[in-house]
């Protein structure tokens, strides 16, 4: 597991991080147009909607690897000892426009199955009790 900075939940992201601690993945959803969005925002980002009637909806945790890069020169101090490492973009089963980043724990560096299936996992961070989302190849 790569050491990550510990996120400090704020008002907007509180429900997201609380769900992660409960082993659930939630994504912000607009109650007006039903579109999912991530990262969360104060209003719906769909052009012409802009509704503030937003909630968080639980999703399956199943996803697909869109593509990836390998980081050799990382700006985040706590991660620099672990480079090089994979960073993939994962899209979720419910909406291929919703993306998450992942180090793909357990997948060898630069040996990533593009288009492959992944499952969300919930990892602790070094600095505290807050969990973060990761994805493992299935």
């Amino acid at each position, binding site marked *: 597991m790569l050491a990550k900075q510990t996120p400090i939940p704020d008002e907007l*992201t509180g429900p997201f991080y609380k769900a992660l601690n409960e082993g659930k993945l939630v994504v912000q959803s607009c109650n007006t147009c039903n579109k999912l969005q991530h990262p969360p925002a104060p209003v719906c980002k769909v052009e012409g909607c802009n509704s503030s009637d937003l909630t968080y909806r639980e999703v399956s945790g199943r996803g697909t690897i869109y*593509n990836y890069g390998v*980081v050799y020169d990382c700006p985040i101090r706590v991660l620099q000892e672990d480079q090089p490492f994979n*960073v993939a973009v994962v899209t979720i089963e419910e909406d291929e426009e919703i993306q998450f980043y992942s180090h793909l724990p357990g997948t060898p560096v630069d040996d990533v199955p593009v288009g492959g299936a992944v499952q969300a996992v919930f990892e602790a961070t070094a600095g505290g009790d807050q969990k973060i989302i990761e994805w493992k190849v299935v």
Partner: protein
Amino acid sequence: MVTENAPDSFYRTKLGLGVWEHRGKVAATGVGHSPTARRWDGKPETSVGAFAIDSIRKAIADSGIDPSEIDGLVLDASTTTGAHWEEGAPIPMDVVNAWNPTDDPLDGIAKLSAEWIIKNMPELTNVKFTMYGPGCMSRALVVAAQAVGDGLTNNCIVLKGWHNLEGRYYQGGANALDTRPGTAALSTLWGTPASYGTALQFAAYCTKYGKNHDMMAPFVVQERANGLNFPEGFWAQHRPEPLTIEDYLAARWIAKPANLYDNDIPIMSTAAYIFTTAERAADHKQKPVYILGHASSRTNAKSLTPSLQEVEDDTYFTGQKIYEGAGIGPDDLSFENMYDGFTLFHQFHLEGLRYRGVQNGEALDFYATDISNSGPNPTSPSGGNAGSGRTRFWMHTDCIQQIQGRAGARQITGVKPEVGVSGGPMPLGGDFIVWSATPN
């Protein structure tokens, strides 16, 4: 003096607006560049403020008009994207007080306001219009073009400055801490360097079209060659070393598939241009370069980072807006100087323009043809950021100089350089200008 950001109405972000109402009525004449440096050495005479004044004076002299004829100033107040003054770090008051300071002691050191410029250039006695085009020289150019066209200013300085400090770009600050605010953490916890998003799009491009990173080599090598013919640029001034195919292919990775030479080197430098009306341009020293139109993109990524599809859709949309506003088509372009700040996205801009008929997925093959400045398909003749360092303005200077016939060893000879386009930065978002030797 209160200087505001340009209003949204200045930017042409939609299709269907027709030809720009000031097509051919605004012109660039004078160009001025400061020296370049890798990092600031802490002296007052080499601060970003000092460099800005130097470039402005050169641009005014180049235009042949008196400083008292300057009545407008448009600039981007930000002078970095990754070399931020560390919070709590002592401010060199000897440098601050070597100039006429504003209320912000970092003004002229790690940022640049219109007020600071005016306070430190007593020869600018007649500036009545000031405005910010925030984010990039490209945006400042669009704002200045619109302002001159609207009659808000007649002889306008357009300015962009960049500072750089000790230490590595993007390191420090929030990236050095053990925690991260929750919203920012959603995209930053995974430690992606600045070129990661572009690298990902390029990886998806290679997957989709069956291409590979090695195919970038001819383009990046040509860019360095063009940059070495840019005497105002960093590599020409400090490290006049050609880049070979072998150098490029052996370079270390930053965010694979982006390597060292796909990333532009942060430097200090400033540039200034003089924009004026077409009528007044006749009295300026240099041949006028008319602005046929401008276009802007304000598209945001749908999620964490733009996908390849989003990039291809938006660059094509931007190309359509560019052509509509300027009243031209792809065949009218003599050359293109689209942004290359990560080299791996230049082809998205080029394909979006359908430059020389290049469709999506074809640019890397196009790079293997003659893209030199002496050939039929000059591609990034400026050499861009890759060729001269991180400023995002070499492309604009080159457009002006090519059309004026003042590009020196970079002068395009394979075609007649009559119409060019420049702008950026990223494939999503950005501002673009079409330049012409004639007003119509």
